[in-house]
């Protein structure tokens, strides 16, 4: 698992770091190994906490996914259940939803972030937008679903206004309760999240590069095509991958909105935890969780590789 490798890395690194830190000025290999270990002791509390709170639970899920409920015998039945029928549909829907609910808000969030970033005199505007983003990025669940039902429901306020000017959106097939509707609602916390995470990357675009390009005769689009775009693109993709993970995680909002009519993996895991299970399938929930971990691990590996490219320019 790439996932567990990433989390467990502090300990093995401590060992290799001890070897690498041997410098000729030190008395001997033993002493330098000791000082190197002491250097790493500063991150020990953090490493222990992450191990207990994050790594061990994740390992428990992986082990549980291969165990038969009750006996604990090794089995692939859970994975079998989790990759067929309604659970396979759940994965498909979750993936589709997450792709849509990360690419669309990714682009919108970048535009908004750029708009407030370039508003040099708009200090108040910037602070309002950034603090609002911090709040809205954490908003979700039943209250969020309700906000949209109260405005875009079939008999709600905004639907009524649009109807008054001849736009009967529900007659044209619009609904909040299918995948497209869920994406529309997810934008409400995904766009602010994008604004928050992309801003540091925008601030890494140095004015000097722009000026240099202009001195060399570059037009606006040429600057973006050859300088700004290539520098920003890895960060942009990295942030979109982050949004992808966030969309995969969302549980309460989708459940409140669709009440389970669209099979989504996060909702299915939740119903396993709530005890809605068929006898003999108790550990299929862990297999579903493992499936999500695998998807996230792939996404995170891509994210790490992109960040490495982005970090070359952003300091």
């Amino acid at each position, binding site marked *: 698992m790439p996932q567990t490798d990433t989390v467990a890395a502090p300990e093995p690194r401590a060992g290799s770091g001890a070897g690498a830190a041997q410098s000729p000025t030190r008395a001997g290999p033993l002493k330098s190994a000791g000082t190197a270990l002491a250097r790493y002791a500063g991150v020990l509390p953090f490493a222990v906490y992450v191990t207990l709170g994050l790594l061990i639970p994740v390992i428990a899920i992986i082990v549980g996914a291969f165990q038969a409920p009750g006996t604990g015998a090794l089995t692939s039945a859970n994975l079998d259940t989790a990759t067929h029928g309604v659970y396979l549909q759940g994965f498909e829907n979750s993936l589709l939803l997450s792709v849509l609910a990360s690419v669309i808000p990714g682009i919108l969030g970048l535009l908004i972030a750029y708009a407030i970033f370039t508003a040099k005199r708009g200090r108040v505007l910037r602070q309002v937008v950034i603090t609002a983003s911090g709040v809205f990025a954490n908003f979700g669940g039943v209250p969020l679903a309700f906000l949209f039902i109260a405005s875009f429901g079939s008999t709600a306020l905004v639907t009524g206004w649009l109807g008054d000017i001849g736009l009967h959106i529900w007659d044209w097939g619009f609904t909040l309760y299918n995948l497209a509707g869920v994406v529309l609602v997810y934008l409400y916390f995904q766009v602010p999240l994008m604004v928050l995470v992309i801003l540091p990357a925008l601030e890494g675009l140095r004015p000097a590069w722009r000026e240099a390009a202009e001195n060399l005769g570059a037009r606006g689009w040429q600057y973006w095509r050859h300088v700004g775009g290539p520098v920003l693109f890895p960060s942009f993709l990295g942030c979109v991958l982050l949004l992808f993970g966030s969309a995969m995680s969302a*549980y309460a909002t989708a459940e409140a909105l669709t009440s389970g009519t669209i099979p989504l993996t996060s909702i299915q895991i939740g119903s396993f935890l709530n005890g809605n299970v068929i006898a003999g399938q108790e550990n299929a929930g862990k297999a579903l969780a493992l499936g999500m971990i695998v998807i996230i691990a792939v996404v995170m590996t891509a994210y790490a590789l992109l960040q490495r490219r982005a970090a070359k320019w952003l300091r």
Partner: protein
Amino acid sequence: MAAVAQAPPAPPASAPARARRGRVPAWRWAILLVAGIYFLLPLYAALRFAGIKAYGSVFSRTGFTDALWLSVRLAIITTLITLALMVPTTVYVHLRLPRLRRLMEGITILPIVIPPVVLIVGVLQVAPGSLKATPWLLALEYVILAMPFAYRAIDTGLRALDVKTLTEAAESLGAGWGATLWRVILPNLRTAMLSATVLIIALVLGEFTMASLDLYETFPVWIVQFDQTDAATSVAASLGALFVTWIVLMLITWAGTRQARRTGGGEVTLFTVARTDTTTGS
């Protein structure tokens, strides 16, 4: 990307940039207008739906005090543990182990992308029964959820400081590692820690998935209970919480910026410290 590609330059510093400034407001205001409508319209619709009376009735509901008090205690404990864990670790990594920074970024991004609904499956399986019987298990896991925000806020704060010079100055004056951290670095990190605190509090006061699956009635779980019987109260309570958090965030960034200006720092935002003078800054 097309709209960005045609966008005028970021800093209105150079002469050609100033000449093109006339085009800036049009697309910027269009984007912000559309975004404003999208974000404010549902709020307005929900406010109209709930009505004014519902706001008064929130406080008299059974369980309001208990749920709010539990959430407040969780927020305090989570903030204390997170800061005590993350501030020394982040400072230490900055100073002594800069090579671990990429790794720290990778680890602290995990709690954002590992779904809480997945994490709680594993936590409920391995946590000792005595811990599961108390809400403190939630606080311990909230620290994990809060790590990404805390790490980023503190890391940004540290980048804006010249930590190396500060530490060397402190050490040459005879201060140990603890004294340097406590008396030199912490006072300089006040704004970053404030940002982190607010983000942690916003997170704990809004977290629903773990609390509900762990069967504890925190404030967000309590709000949702009313959804079945009295939607107006539920909406009123969650909108109230939203506005209060927003106002607190505004106050803190405003106070932080004022303080930073006095000490010569930049403008304070949640995740970044922007230089106020982009024309002279490098």
